[in-house]
């Protein structure tokens, strides 16, 4: 359990060559061993979705995987969303529409929404609500998150 293994994580295009215990969760490895603390652990249990990242472009809960399972896979986190100073349309929409208060769930919601909209840019309202309902926010009451994601979707469709 505590015997360590060498792995390489590709996070936002940067390679991290690290040595991990097999039991370390992916969220812990991303945060503690790669220093990317934008991804948050809210429940360690796969329920709240604060730790949502994109793994090979699929939204996944980083608390439900071990770091070692992500060896060689392409990971995207909130730190990689903006293009230099230019915010991703979803980031911009979240601040424009007051879709965050404490900001703790925000990275997870952003990555979930990126994953949803990249796969299905024309997603219907009901399907969007259904998909976004997999993450929890305790501050906003959600309405502004819905508004922001829809505004960003429009922006992304327009290119």
């Amino acid at each position, binding site marked *: 359990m505590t015997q360590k293994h060498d792995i390489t994580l590709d996070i936002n295009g940067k390679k991290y060559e690290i040595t991990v215990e097999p039991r370390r969760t992916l969220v812990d490895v991303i945060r503690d061993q790669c220093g990317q603390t934008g991804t948050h652990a*809210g429940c360690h249990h796969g329920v709240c979705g604060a730790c949502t990242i994109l793994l090979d472009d699929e939204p996944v809960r980083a608390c439900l995987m071990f770091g070692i399972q992500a060896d060689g896979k392409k990971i995207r986190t909130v730190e990689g969303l903006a293009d230099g100073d230019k915010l991703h349309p979803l980031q911009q929409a979240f601040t424009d529409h007051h879709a965050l208060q404490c900001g703790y769930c925000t990275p997870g919601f952003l990555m979930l929404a990126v994953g949803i909209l990249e796969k299905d840019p024309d997603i219907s309202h009901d399907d969007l609500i259904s998909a976004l309902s997999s993450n929890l926010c305790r501050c*906003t009451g959600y309405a502004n998150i819905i508004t922001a994601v829809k505004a960003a979707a429009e922006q992304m469709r327009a290119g």
Partner: protein
Amino acid sequence: MASKTKVILGERLRRLEDPPLITGQGRFADDINFPHQLHMRIVRSPYAHAEIKSINTGRASKIPGVVAIWTYDDIQNLGPIDFRADKSAEELKAFRQFCLAKSRVRYVGDPVAAIFAEDPYIAEDAADLIELDVNQLPVISDADQEPGEFDEGLGSEAALLTHTFGDVSSVWESAYLVVDVDLRTGRHSGVPLETRGAIGVHNKATDTLELYGAAKIPHRNRDTLVRMLSRPPARIHLHEGHTGGGFGIRGELYPEDVLVLVAAERLGRPVKWIEDRQEHMMAANQGRNQHHLARMAFDQDGQILAMADEFWHDQGGYVRTHGANVPNRTMCMLTGAYKIPAFQAKCHFRLTNKTPAATYRAPGRFESTFVRERIMDIAAEKLGIDRVEIRRRNLVGVDDMPFKIRFDEPGLETLVFDSGDYESLLDKALVHFKWDELQAELNDRRAGGELVGCGLGVFVEESGKGPVDGARITVDTNGDVEVLTGGASLGQGFETTMAQITAAALGADYSKITVIHGQTDRIPYGIGAHAARATVMTGSAVNITALKVREKALDVAAELLQTTADRLNIENSEVFISDNRNGPSVSLAEISERLAPGSKHLGGREPNLSAEGFHNTKESAFPYGIHFAVAKVDAETGHINVERFMVAYDVGRAVNHMLLEGQLVGGCVQGVGGALFEEFSYSEAGEPLAVTLADYLLPSMDCAPAVECLVTEDAPSPTNELGIKGGGEGGINGVGAAIAGAIDDAIGQVGAVTELPVTPQRMREILNRAG
């Protein structure tokens, strides 16, 4: 995002807080690390009530990487977690919690040992090997059962509290109608998405203890730590970073906060503790859990003659930092927005073997509004008076303001409702919600077989309780403005709010303002962010201070522009002659330079473009509101769908409507959780049954109603210069009351809802009872 126009209060300015939070650059508790740090893991009691016979740490201490293991014996010189307002709580002192259990454990989750290790995974491994040997004791599972024993010779009823005015006893016999209710509110909590965290550091060079991960009330907690650790205030500092939600429960002083500080000093290394979710659900403050037997007397026209309430407050295992604040708030706000001639409330403040309770957003008010408004619905039905009309007849009138509620008991604070036009808000809200049209529509739908109905809850909130807060504002030679406060940011938009007030008062460029909060080493005082105080208290202090800086800037500018200060204005950090906008001007940066220490332009002035100011008040500001709900019941599953919800709320004056609505909507959805889903339930043996977010159900997006807001500014508060009243709790206060009313209406059975949350199981029971 430089603002190119004058900033005004009320404007929907985008938040200053957002850039780091949307790019993953936040600094939450778990993002803070120090070289050579240790990790603390708390071993918690698996028993609800037991006497500790022994704690064997032998096996755990042999794990490589474990540096120390402490039990109570190792911290014998450390007193229990103290009350914030310790004078009023003298009789409750015996019920305080030690940082590690002394001789008994009193809830599942009670800390019994602390492990310090090189790595959090190792600390958790070691925790599994701690052997706790106990004699189990009888479990007190509810506050309304026979009182038990807190300690040898000490009963579980910590206090019998009362609030009284007028004579209720003569009313019951003669009244036209007396309504009796038996109501319960479930055990809820704030459940912020970030769990708690604390990092203790001992700076040996200065012999200063530093606590990171602080929130809500860093200065007040500093003061408590000063007492507990016998250190001067200059040698303990608390630091607030980003905080992932507060809601009243985060940022109180807990055992873990004290332990990391004591350990950092004693072990000579920084000590980090991050709570996991399961711990959070059994260790962080809970609330709301009350059982009320209440009654109200009415005359034939629906005028309230008297109200009485005896209730049992389930405090859990210990009395924490607030003392008996929550039951006291429950009692003093029970009468709400109504004029009631005689009143008697009695609270059995009882310890049980559950996680300790304290304040959760709108503490005592969510509960008391549920009780009072349930009775109003039943009285309306029994008297054949419309639900809205009976409320209207009893409202405190605009001519009654300021409206005083004086309690007979010596020492109890008199409430002074500072301002308000409750009936006007009711009228506006009815129109906005289209109440009359709605009744016809719902009648049609019910005729078509749907179980759908509407309800409302009227309430008064409390905010801005003093006594004082202050601020320091400095404009540097680059024109950057630092607003230094002792406030706290829990996600509510504190920085934006303070910057907006500063920009409006001083005329400074909003984008050049930095707001400091939660740093006890930067400013010696601070009221923090609790009980909707921040915008009223700190905001007022910031306004006063910004106006002082403005005065100083205008004084210098008048000299430079060869005019008098009263002819000058400031916008976007430029001082100009009011009737000559495009004429000569001088920037705040230039003025700051002329006021630099040693500057030959100082004249007789104090150096620096800065000021310190205070807002003092003896009075609270009382906002008021009405909640409206439309709910549909699924008879088969018991599921309740809240189709519509409206929060009508008067805040006196809004600083930023976008943030205010954010508070109202967010609070409302939390209230929906408390009304329908959320509950910390326990087995008979006192085992917590909701220790994950899969058991304790927070509202998710698909079950959160789209909340409409009607914000009015009809009754500015006379307690402060800007007229502000607090906005943090108005979204949640009446949610339980309004949804209960809507469910009753949907099933055509007034008074059917007697307990929150109305889970699908409870809804099914209600329907089955109704046949």
